[in-house]
Each structure stands twice: as structure tokens, then as C-alpha cells.
């Protein structure tokens, strides 16, 4: 039974942290779903653990079940690794809920730091998808991400420089889009809003997971919630005058709904990718279905499109050997490897395509992940649901290789059996995969797998007492976070003596 992504699509969480304390440069942020705008799920450097230490040290650090009268879903948190605030140096986990609340936890101490219920959720009755839950808030930051060129010319996102102190607001803030479609600028230190909220989306629109790149927030909405169209949205927050309303642009795609767990994806060159699902196709009339759209930044002009029957999957983008690649998933369980040329010509010929990832069928679900070894080997990870009899699902790892002058994805390993896994996260050569469970006979189990072999290193065993809620995984500073269907946030990782 495939649960609709839209039923669990979370608050779009994106958080760009300011420069960390100089003496604490190793503490990292997890800014958004998948950890970055490219949705790689890769925490590139975590100084808090090594692969060898996972088996010995990983354990349940804390769990929290916030007071949650609406019994709404908790979303995978975004993390500020080091807030230097008026109450001290804090690593904070921002947990949004599907009913317009925000809980902020001190991640070291398992203490509530601040919480706020916005109370703006408008009961949505206009479709089955919308009645599944209220609209969800979205976090963004005030940080400014700029692209710079790394040695060798590969464009990368720079760390967010500290914005100049602003007496009206402050240097550390998040953006929150509440159920009423209002963009709120929220002070991460105490939840205060220093400027009035601004309407950027239709009330009750239930945006996808957000993304932010070069001071533009991206989201998608699907027709049927709050009267919103099926559209891509770009909210430009680059105006230094934070009291000025942001510039909002949208592209109505008029076709099938947007799919995937991770919302819009932005590649390192700024191109915005969104994946639409099944529906009518007519490019001439901006009617895009079964299509991976490549859009220009800010103004959302269609740069190209690639058409193939899609899986319910957010694509992933990355730079490899100075080229920008996009990987998407097909309905029949294959991965398409694409570059910019794939969005031209006949719009349906990828650079290469894999065979179905599992021999017994099954589908790829949610999103894709990607990481790169120090030696340059690029890996792509996919979560497969279903398959041959007795196979619940798995994580499949593939290597990007050159074969006959052509880049191809070659299957390297497949994990142990996992029940409805969510897109994994990767750090320090370890893949963390969550077997979500089905909510009936199976509960959530987090596994640590050797990223090179898929060998199981560690698991939570039977510690987790509920199935997951399919909202995704977060990893930051030696801690892995996920939410379960009973409204609990679980945190496993390396203990820190306090």
C-alpha cells in the first residue's frame, strides 16, 4: 500500500545557518530536506563520528513527544549546528508539525528551547488529499547563499556569510510559511517575528518541501488544496529591505501533480528542477505531465524538459567531473542519468538508463540520494518499495562510471530488506537507512550501512516503538533524527557527556 507523498509532504524545511563561531567551525547545519538544495542527503563532513565508531557508540540519545493536541505529524527537523544566542551556544532542532506548530529543541540537552503554535491552519475540505492534514509550516532562513567556483571550476554553494546586524530583525532568522500562506520571518533565538508576515501563497495551499538558493525560496503546490493551482513558486527575498514584500513568481504547469518527497531541486548552476506526475502533456500550452522540468532561477522560465513516466520521486542533482548531472526515477523502477542535453532534442533520451533496480519489480519511492568518495567515485542511492515476493524494500546503491565514453550508473550493492524505506542520508562513509515500517506489524528501524558495501554496521533493533511517518531523515553532528507516526521524534547518535 503506497502512501501518497502528499499525505505526508511536510513543511518545507530549509535553514541556512550563519557562520559558526570561529572556534567551533566543525559544527554543521542541516538546512533543508536532504541537507542541501540538490537534495543529496549527504552530510559532507561530520567530525563527531567515524565509521568505526558507529557500531560502538551509536545509541538512543533522546526522544521527545511534544504536546500535540492535533496529533499531527512531526517533520524531520532542520538543524542549526551552533546558534550563538542570548541564551548561549545552542545546537537547535526545528521541528515543524503538520498543524502549524513549531517546536525547537536544544539538541544537546533534550530541552524545549521555544515553541509556538501559529494557529492559522484552515481546515481544508476541498479534497481527500487536503483533509489528510492541515497545511504545514515551512522554515527558511535569512542566510544568503552565494555560488562560488571551487578549484577546478566546479560551482559550489559557499557557506552562508553572516548578514549585517539588522536592528529590526537580527542576524539569525528563519522563514516560516504557515498554513495561511503567509511568509513569516522568525527569529531563531526566540521565535519572535520582527516584521509583519506577508502573503505569498494561497491560504491552505500546503506547499511542498521548500528549497532556497541565491535568496530565492522555491516551492510547488498542487491543485486542490486551498484553491491553489498546480504551480511552481519562486519567492525572491533578496531585497535588503526586509520590510519590503518579496517578489513572488509562479509557473502554472497545468498537468499532473508534482511528485516526490523533496519538492523542488536546485542544481549547483542554479537550475530549478521539478518532477510532475501523470497527466496530459502539451508543452506548447504549458501543460506538463510526466515531465522533469528545468527552470531558470527566480523567474521560472522553462529552460528544458524531459518526459518519461515518473516514479513518485524527487530527483537529485550533483556535479561530477565538472558536469552537472540530474538523476530521476521512472515508474518501472529505473534511474535516468541526465545532463542539460537531455532536456533538448526529443526530450526523452537520457544519457543512460539503468535496468530496473530490483529483479522482482517494485517502485522507487520518495527521493534519491548521492555522495562522493574522496577518490572521486560518485554514488547514487535509491529507495525501493516492494519487489519480488517476500521483499519489502531496500536501498540500492549505484556508482557513476564512464563506460565506453558514456557515463552510466552501475548497481554496486543492495541493502538488507527494509520496509518502506525513506531516502537515506550519508555521512563519513556510512549510509543511514530508515526502514519505516508499515504501521501494522513492523515498526521503524534505523540502520547504519557501510556506504561502500551496504553491509549492516548497526541498527536500532527494537528500540523504536512506532512506525515512521515517512517525512525523511536528518543527520547533523553525529545525530540522526526521524519522526514516527505516534508523534515522537527519535534521535540516535554519538553520546556527548554534558
Amino acid at each position, binding site marked *: 500500500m503506497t502512501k501518497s507523498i502528499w499525505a505526508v509532504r511536510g513543511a518545507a524545511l530549509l535553514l541556512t545557518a550563519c557562520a559558526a*563561531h570561529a*572556534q*567551533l567551525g566543525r*559544527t554543521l547545519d542541516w538546512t533543508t530536506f536532504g541537507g542541501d538544495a540538490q537534495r543529496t542527503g549527504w552530510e559532507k563532513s561530520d567530525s563527531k563520528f567515524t565509521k568505526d565508531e558507529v557500531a560502538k557508540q551509536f545509541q538512543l540519545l533522546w526522544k521527545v513527544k511534544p504536546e500535540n493536541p492535533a496529533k499531527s505529524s512531526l517533520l524531520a527537523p532542520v538543524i542549526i549546528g*551552533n546558534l*550563538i*544566542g*542570548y*541564551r*548561549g*551556544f*545552542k*545546537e537547535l532542532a526545528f521541528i515543524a508539525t503538520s498543524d502549524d506548530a513549531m517546536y525547537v529543541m*536544544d539538541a*544537546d*540537552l533534550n530541552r524545549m528551547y521555544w515553541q509556538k503554535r501559529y494557529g492559522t491552519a484552515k481546515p481544508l475540505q476541498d479534497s481527500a488529499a487536503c483533509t489528510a492534514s492541515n497545511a504545514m509550516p515551512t522554515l527558511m532562513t535569512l542566510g544568503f547563499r552565494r555560488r562560488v567556483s571551487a578549484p577546478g571550476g566546479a560551482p559550489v554553494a559557499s557557506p552562508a556569510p553572516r548578514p549585517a*546586524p539588522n*536592528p529590526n*530583525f*537580527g*542576524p*539569525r532568522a528563519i522563514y516560516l510559511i504557515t498554513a495561511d500562506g503567509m511568509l513569516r520571518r522568525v*527569529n531563531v*533565538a*526566540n521565535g*519572535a517575528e*520582527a516584521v509583519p508576515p506577508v502573503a505569498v501563497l494561497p491560504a491552505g495551499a500546503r506547499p511542498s518541501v521548500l528549497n532556497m538558493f541565491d535568496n530565492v525560496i522555491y516551492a510547488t503546490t498542487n491543485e486542490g488544496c486551498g484553491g491553489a493551482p498546480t504551480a511552481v513558486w519562486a519567492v525572491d527575498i533578496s531585497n535588503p529591505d526586509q520590510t519590503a514584500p518579496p517578489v513572488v513568481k509562479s509557473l502554472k504547469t497545468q498537468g499532473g501533480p508534482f511528485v516526490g518527497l523533496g519538492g523542488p531541486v536546485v542544481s549547483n548552476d542554479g537550475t530549478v528542477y521539478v518532477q510532475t506526475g501523470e497527466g496530459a502533456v502539451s508543452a506548447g500550452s504549458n501543460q506538463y505531465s510526466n515531465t522533469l522540468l528545468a527552470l531558470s532561477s527566480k523567474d521560472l522560465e522553462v529552460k528544458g524538459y524531459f518526459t518519461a513516466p515518473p516514479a513518485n520521486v524527487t530527483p537529485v542533482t550533483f556535479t561530477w567531473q565538472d558536469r552537472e548531472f540530474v538523476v530521476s526515477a521512472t515508474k518501472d523502477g529505473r534511474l535516468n542519468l541526465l545532463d542539460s542535453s537531455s532536456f533538448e532534442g526529443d526530450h526523452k533520451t537520457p544519457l543512460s538508463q539503468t535496468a530496473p533496480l530490483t529483479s522482482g519489480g517494485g517502485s522507487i519511492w520518495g527521493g534519491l540520494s548521492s555522495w562522493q568518495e574522496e577518490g572521486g567515485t560518485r554514488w547514487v542511492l535509491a529507495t525501493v518499495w516492494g519487489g519480488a515476493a517476500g521483499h519489502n524494500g531496500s536501498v540500492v546503491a549505484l556508482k557513476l562510471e564512464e563506460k565506453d565514453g558514456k557515463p552510466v550508473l552501475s548497481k554496486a550493492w543492495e541493502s538488507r530488506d527494509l520496509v518502506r524505506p525513506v531516502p537515506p542520508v550519508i555521512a563519513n562513509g556510512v549510509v543511514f537507512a530508515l526502514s519505516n515500517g508499515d504501521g501494522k506489524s513492523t515498526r521503524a528501524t534505523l540502520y547504519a550501512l557501510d556506504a561502500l558495501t551496504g553491509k549492516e554496521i548497526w541498527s536500532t533493533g527494537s528500540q523504536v516503538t512506532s512506525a515512521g511517518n515517512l517525512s525523511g531523515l536528518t543527520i547533523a553532528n553525529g545525530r540522526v533524527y526521524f519522526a514516527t507516526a505516534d508523534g515522537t521524534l527519535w534521535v540516535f547518535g554519538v553520546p*556527548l*557527556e*554534558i
Partner: protein
Amino acid sequence: MRKRNIAVCICLAGVAVGADWPTDGGDPQRTGWQRNEKVLTKDNVKNLKVLWKTKLDNEPREMHSLLPPLIVENIPTRAGLKEVVIESGSSDNVYGLDAKSGELLWKKHFTYNSGKPQRMGGPLCPAGLVVTPTVGPPNATGARIAYAVSGDGMLHSLNAADGEDVAPPADFMPPNGKAYSLNLVNNTLYTTTAQGCGGNPNKVYSFDLATRETKSYNPKGGGLWGRSGAAIGFDGTLYAPTGDGAYVPGEERYGQAIIAVTPDLKYKDHYAPSNAAFLWKRDLDMQVTPAVFKYKDRELLVSSSKECRLWLMDAKSIGGADHRTPLYRTPLLCNEDVNFAAAGIWGSMATWEDTKGTRWILASFWGPAHSQFKPPISYGAVTRGAVVALKLEDKAGKLVLTPVWMSHDMDMAEPPVIANGMVFAYGSGESNAQASPELGLGANTSAIRIKNSTHATVYAYDAETGKELWSSGDSITSFVHFGALSISNGRLYLGAFDSTLYAIGLPGR
């Protein structure tokens, strides 16, 4: 062995003669204990008054203004023997004042002399005279030398009687650094530096007054910003906290630790709390100058940090075999919110021994008391700071620190001094918040903090109960940043941010 001990005792005795207060904390061990107080008693302390206040012409730099005063008596001046207050100011000034009248006897201003410009760098780096001087022992004629380090890093040797140079200035440290109180033992000066001010590394420095040789040792941690510099044990070992930094002993990086250094500045030992990683992450610096003392046949030291617990250490092995195990570790006294500013223990410790042989440890903290810290005697809710007194006890063969009393609430309690069964402490009135919700760390400017500061208040307490015996009320009109109380011959001295030096004592005595 015995000969060496005798020699050390002779040298140390030369520093602490009479009821002087020749160095920050009163002695090289930084005990804060005036053993020779005869004038002030629990009976008469209620009559304390501001005897005099002298406004000096020192210009504050950032938050820094007057440093802890030093007191030396029987100084042969042109006007006869005088008790002289040596006060230093952040704009490269040193003053000599008559302790009885507050009259300015002399002033010495050091002209900045370096190829590098003298630049302030925010509240942490005032780039001036920030090192509390120290005064050497008297020579055969009773003359004494005050040693001071100017903002350009030069060491100056001044005649305590008239401020004249008695030796040419000497290169000691790089310019624009941030060094902490000088200490003098066995004819060698010591200090520690921090905050990387002036782009300088954070080190322990020494200057041999005989050879005029400078040495340094870098523990490769954070800033060594125990406010009273390094405490020096009875065998000459230096003990200093290393602030906020990585603890990687395998790489000889001793951040978030207490280090023990030999007199010739070689690494000797260290103690790093078992939760050092957490302390580093949360910016809970090790920044409290330890106090060293003898207890029965042992030499012990006690220190703390912003975290707000005390560590009792044995000088023989301050962290035990694993360098992570002190003799005793108290529960948290304060800083339940785990804040890096306006909370925790800052500055230095204090210790004294009563006539019954009970050893007392005193600590001052900022911010609210911890909700689980409940000493037997307390005086109401503590939200802004307090002084805490603990007894050193032997329980079942294990040394422990047992809380006895916590003072009433005071506005940013500063390290106390002890004399004649009384504890003297002050709330600095300083705004120590370094961040605000609206500005984040942008709130850590001298302008904002000065504006939000109030005034210092000095208190006298019964040392055994913490009962307030006297308060200065509103008589001090400015706050104090990184100052300290000095006490000698019935008078307390405190320098305030507005460059006013206060002397508090008994009228007519």
C-alpha cells in the same frame, strides 16, 4: 629537598610582607586571603564608609578602565614612609596614590612604541595596559619595584615611591595582546594571554628579572584568560586554565583544561574535564584562575569555569592518571541554561583557613543559581549572581567540597577576598550579556554594554554564615569590568569604569 623548600619559602615570603596586597589575589597562589588584617573585625565592619575616592585621568578603552589596585606599605618616599596604592589604567597609565588620603603621588604614562598600530578590537581586545601589575619584595632600603606591561608589550620596572623607571623597558610580549595579572615568584614574572588579541597566540609567558630572558609556552588550546593569570604553587609550578579550545592531548593541544607548567615553562601536567567536548561546544570556557593551598600534608588547587562547577585537584597529579579525574567535582552551582555569557563562574577562586583548621573555598558566579543547588544557608532567590562558600571535608577517606552558604542575590558577583573571618565581595553592576535576541552577537559591543551597566556594590559577609554585615549601597556610582577588590590594613580598594578609585574603611582608623 628540605633546603629547596626553605629557599622557596624565603622567596615567597619576600612577596607577602605585612598586610600588603602586592599582587592580584593577594599572593602568588591567588587565594584572595588577607591573612594579616588587624583593623577590620566583624564588630566594626558595619561602620565602613567610602574614605576617599580619587578620579584618575585614565581614559577607558572598550570596557577596560582601572585594574585591581595593589597595596604596599612602608615605601620610602620623599615625604617619608607611606602606604602606597599602585593603580593601573587601561590607557597605559600607572598611578601611585597615598593609601591614607587618596592623594596622587605620581603618575606614569607609557607611550606606545611599536611598529604595529595600537588598535582596539572590541570588548575583548582593548589593546592597552590590561595586565594587572605586581610589586616585588622590598630591597635593603625598603624600596620596591612595580612591574607593569604596557600595551606595546614592553615590561616596565617602576619605583613604587615615585614611578620612575629603575630599569630600561624590556621586550616581553607582542603588542596589542591581552595578558592577565602578572605573578612574581623567584625573581621571575609570569603572565598568560588570551583572545588572540593583536593577532598574537595565546601563551604562558615568563620574564627572568635577572637574565631578562623571555620564555613562552603554548598549550595550543584557547585563551588562557583566568583573570588573575596563572596561580603559582609552592614549588613554583604554574596552573592556568586554557579557555575554550580543542582538547587533543595526543597532539599536545590542551584546550578546555587546566595546565600545570614548570617554572621554566615546560609542560608538566593537565586536567581536562570528562565533558570537555561539551564545554567546548557550548563555549563554557575554562577561564577561572585556580587557587592553590595546602591542606594537611598535601598541596591542592581548586578551579572552575563558566559551566559553574568546582574541581578540586591534587597538585601531584591534577587530573589523575587519565588527566580527566579530579579529586572531587561538585554538582552545578549555577548556569542551568548553559549560557556562555552573564552566567557561570568567572575570574578567580578564593580560599582561606579558619582558626579551627577548616579549609574554605569561595566562588562567585553570575546569573541564577541552579535549581538543584541548595546549600544549607542561603538568603533568598539568586537571579543575578552570588558568592558561595564550601568547606573542604574528608569523608570516608575522600576529599569533598561541601556547600555551606550562598549569599544573597547580587548583580554579577565577582571573586571575593577574605580577611579576619569576613568575606568581602562585590557585584560589578556590569552588563555581561554578549548577545540579544534581536542582534545576536552584535549586542556584544562596549557601547551597548556600558549603556546597560549600572554600578558596583561592595558587601561584607560573615565568612562562616554568609550573613551580610555591610553594604556600600549606592556609594559607588560606576560599574567594574574585570577589576578586583584589594584589602590591606583596614581598607578595601576598588577601581571603577569611570576611572574612580575607591577606598573603603573605618573613618578615623
